[in-house]
């Protein structure tokens, strides 16, 4: 990179919208988990449902729209752990970047 290019890039502005979109893409992929023969996205909705049910086994529609019978507690624990880990990473990376100008 030459000096002219360096000076030009030094005046660059941080693009918050692109960053936000990129982080959403990045961490959405990390929320996907394969478990008990299905592919799941760890979301508050599914975790909430698994928490509220009392049955040992439940049937849920997975990411590929197939009904899958799962052990409720096992899937809950996997998704809950994934969700928390990923969301904290997402949050901390966003916090780190949102102050940039």
């Amino acid at each position, binding site marked *: *990179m030459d000096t002219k290019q360096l000076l*030009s*890039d030094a*005046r*660059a*502005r*941080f*693009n918050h*919208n*692109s*960053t936000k*979109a*990129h982080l959403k*893409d*990045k961490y*959405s*992929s*990390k929320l*996907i*988990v*394969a478990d008990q*023969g299905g*592919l799941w*996205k760890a979301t508050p909705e599914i975790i909430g449902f698994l928490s509220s049910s009392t049955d040992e086994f439940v049937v849920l529609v997975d*990411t*590929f*729209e197939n009904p899958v019978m799962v052990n409720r507690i096992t899937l809950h624990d996997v998704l809950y752990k994934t969700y928390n880990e990923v969301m904290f990473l997402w949050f901390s*990376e966003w916090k780190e*970047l949102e102050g*940039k100008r």
Partner: protein
Amino acid sequence: MSRGALLFAFNSPKYNYYEMAVYTAKRINHFLGLPVTIVTDESSIPNTVTYEFDNTIIVSPDKTNIRDHSIWINKGRYQAYDLSPYDETLLLDTDYMVNSDTLLKTFDLSTDFACHDTTSFLMHPGVPQEILSAYSYKTLWATVIMFRKTLRAKQIFECLEMVQNNYDHYANIHSFIGGLFRNDYALTLALRIANGHADRIEDIIPWNLVHVGKNTSVYKNTAVELESEYTVMFDNWQRGKIRKEYTIVKDTDFHVMNKDNFMELIA
């Protein structure tokens, strides 16, 4: 059950794809923990080999594809099924920058063949998805393919060969520009044919393929060889002037469409 990655790399007059493959292979080893097999030709292998691939498979490339007045050796990808020494294979473009272990999740998919159907561009959110033509299908991407050695996967690759051999015919039917062969288009048609002219959601990798597109350049943030943090610079044209914008990405895999930029990254 063996697992590994497969890269096709044939040097063109303009770009050293073998060198790109070495760089990508090191990243695959590091971030995915997978061995890498290269499919190449004699003339692409340098005199001094600095990196030992798991396997080096020599083939005669088809050099009949021309892009921008230069040879683009991208045909023959259908051979991946027969050439891969692995039960489960990740077939990647050599300009795919692996920066995380995300691709290992493709092996968790219950299907025997998976690829991307949705892309996103760094610094360019909301770009419409590519379609073969106004009256045809949404493009599938051959940049990242996971396949297992099954009869169905074999049929898909055989279909890919058939589409390659009759590319102009399919271009005519689907109203896209023939002549220049694109693996993405051939894959789009082959997978659909193999699936009985239907979409099969299970064959789609359930996250976006990230591209670094035009007017966008990627720079390493440090000189560390296996760096996974980059500054992405975008030339945003507004009223005839360029406004420079940037973001920082880390631990994110992406496909560098600009080969010159990729060569700068590996230098």
